[in-house]
């Protein structure tokens, strides 16, 4: 295994070090930071917007670019959170908890510098772990059959819902089902039957995943900036940040480095869990640091604590790298953004999953190795450029929103050259806005949509192999193991609910006893 790994790493280094691919990493980080920094736009939008560009590239260069966009956007989102308290997505909310107060106390440069160092450290440590864990898992996964894949996809979709948070499990599951429903539109690949096409030629090939991603994220987010009258950037003065302000003292480094180390490990392992992603990584890292901090330091949390800023920033970057493990080894996306990247892989004709490790080591290893480079670029490029990047936040929304809408529509049109797609995008955008107003999450929908076709194929194949019996769900130990994990993951929200209920009951009884004693 070690020989294969070293050979793979060499392949990855060779592929990444091609000047064109270095330029792609650089461009990806730059574009990701740029888009991620715009208020209201997160990494899913950033990756979706850049996908059309990658269609003109070979798969390795394209994926390297998208990976760069992903962590660039996470970093950009943190900058936006720290400076104007407008997190582009949930993963950077925890960063704003202490980053924004620190910026308000007159240390915006320090807050941004700590975020940059924490991102770099979290990203780099997680990539080292990714390098070891991904091939190990891929080696195990090469023995997977259709039944195992089907079970894995069920696990991935269930996990997305299980980590949706209190009151969100059923809604996330419902959105997964809606995504699966949308994936059935078009011609059934096995029988050639048309499903839900309503006689339209344009729907014969089904719904383009890029179209759905752009409509549900990029277009919708841009329109929500208008709907919510988001004027968070209006009062921002970019001149308030000076390069001289970006200094972090030795004492401050000493204070934050244990937090960075702990959060890197925690973030990575949370990222590996399908469906957990960067949001959970950042919040859990923040929670862990607050619990571990001495009482004096604990009081500073939420008021500009350096540890409170470094921990979630490290956690979300480490989790972002961790979410590549299930994507690259099992073909199961760990988050909404990696779901969009999975769609890009499928569009390249690459079958995601453990075979990718064997069939396309150039893509597999190039993505991993490019992350080292990307993290270095983000640090050395973004740190001195922060004051200039921050000027982006001052772009008025009356120019920014039409430009985002234009690039989203063009992103799809310039790939398909079909004006019907623009109409479809508008239709899905309206539907997505309605669903979001009804408090329904969108990322599970995209995940369900992307995995839908693969899931149906694997289920059909498993049934054929097992003579149309459902026994494939438990006959192989691996399948059984995955299914048991699914049941456990699915039960988690209910277990949490029961524990919370019992706790509140006990608290009520205690209160009653105390009242009686009085």
């Amino acid at each position, binding site marked *: 295994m070690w020989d294969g790994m070293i050979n793979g790493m060499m392949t990855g280094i060779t592929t990444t070090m091609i000047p064109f691919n270095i330029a792609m990493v650089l461009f990806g980080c730059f574009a990701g930071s740029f888009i991620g920094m715009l208020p209201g736009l997160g990494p899913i939008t950033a990756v979706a917007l850049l996908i059309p560009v990658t269609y*003109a590239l070979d798969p390795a260069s394209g994926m390297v670019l998208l990976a760069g966009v992903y962590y660039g956007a996470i970093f950009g989102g943190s900058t936006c959170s720290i400076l104007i308290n407008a997190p582009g997505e949930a993963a950077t909310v925890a960063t704003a908890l202490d980053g924004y107060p620190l910026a308000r106390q007159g240390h915006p440069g320090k807050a941004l510098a700590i975020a940059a160092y924490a991102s770099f450290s979290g990203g780099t440590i997680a990539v080292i772990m990714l390098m070891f864990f991904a091939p190990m898992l891929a080696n195990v996964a090469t023995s997977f059959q259709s039944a195992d894949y089907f079970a894995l996809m069920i696990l991935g979709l269930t996990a997305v819902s299980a980590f949706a948070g*209190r*009151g*969100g499990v*059923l*809604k996330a*599951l*419902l959105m997964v*089902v*809606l995504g*699966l*429903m949308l994936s*059935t539109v078009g011609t*059934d690949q*096995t*029988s050639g*039957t*048309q*499903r*839900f096409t309503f006689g339209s030629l344009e729907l014969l090939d089904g719904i383009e995943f890029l179209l759905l991603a752009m409509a549900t994220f990029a*277009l919708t987010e841009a*329109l929500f900036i*208008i*709907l*919510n*009258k988001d004027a968070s950037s209006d009062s921002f003065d970019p001149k308030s940040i000076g390069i001289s302000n970006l200094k972090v003292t030795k004492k401050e480094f000493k204070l934050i480095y244990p937090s960075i180390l702990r959060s890197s490990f925690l973030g990575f392992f949370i990222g590996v869990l399908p469906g957990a992603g960067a949001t959970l990584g950042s919040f859990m890292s923040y929670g862990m640091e607050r619990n571990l901090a001495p009482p004096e330091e604990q009081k500073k949390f939420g008021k500009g604590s350096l540890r409170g800023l470094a921990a979630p920033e490290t956690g979300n970057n480490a989790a972002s790298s961790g979410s590549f493990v299930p994507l690259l080894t099992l073909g199961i996306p760990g988050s909404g953004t990696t779901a969009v990247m999975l769609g890009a892989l499928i569009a390249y004709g690459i079958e995601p999953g453990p075979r990718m490790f064997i069939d396309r080591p150039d893509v597999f290893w190039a993505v991993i190795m490019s992350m080292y480079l990307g993290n270095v670029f983000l640090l050395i490029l973004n740190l001195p450029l922060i004051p200039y990047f921050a000027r982006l936040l001052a772009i*008025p*929304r*009356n*120019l920014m*929103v*039409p*430009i985002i*809408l*234009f690039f989203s*529509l*063009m992103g799809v*049109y*310039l790939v398909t*050259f079909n*004006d*019907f797609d*623009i*109409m479809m*995008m*508008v239709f899905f*955008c*309206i539907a997505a806005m*309605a*669903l979001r*107003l*009804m*408090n*329904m999450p969108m990322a599970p929908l995209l995940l369900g949509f992307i995995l839908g076709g693969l899931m*149906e194929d694997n*289920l*059909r194949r498993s*049934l*054929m192999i097992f003579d*149309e019996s459902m026994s494939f769900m438990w006959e192989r130990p691996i399948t059984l193991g995955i299914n048991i994990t699914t049941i456990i993951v699915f039960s988690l929200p209910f277990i949490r609910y029961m524990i919370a209920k019992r706790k509140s009951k006990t608290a009520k009884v205690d209160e009653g006893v105390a009242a009686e004693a009085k």
Partner: protein
Amino acid sequence: MAREKVGALVMLLFSIAYGLLATKIPLSFLAQQETFTSRTMPYALAVMGGILSFLILVLPTVNPSGKKTLSEETRGMEWSTAILLVAMMLVYGLIMKWLGFILASIIFLLAGFYILGERRIQRMLFTAVLLVVGLWGIMSMLLGVYIAPGEIFYQLGIL
């Protein structure tokens, strides 16, 4: 009614409609003998969608933000601007074939800027023309992608 419940109701209706439409998926004689047909997955999804929507409808709403009604949630939102932008996107889709990429895109961007309150003509024109011509240049000259001109140029005999 809590907005989550409205969402669940909409999804329940959608699942029923989806399930009914699934019965219309054509099956050949041979396919009808199989256990797993083109209808199997849609049937299963319709049932799952129905059950989940029903559960959200009947179970109490836990999430405080989900308890808000739709009118509470949408109060104070800038609907007129958003609707105009959506209408503009539809118009953009309709005129794209006739006016071609460059003209349609410049009109879309100018209209978008105007709808959002920008009135500085020079800034609007500079941004729109620079973006569209820049993108057109990258696509057709750098990447070699052919972008067809609008029908109107053929109708007018310009091309």
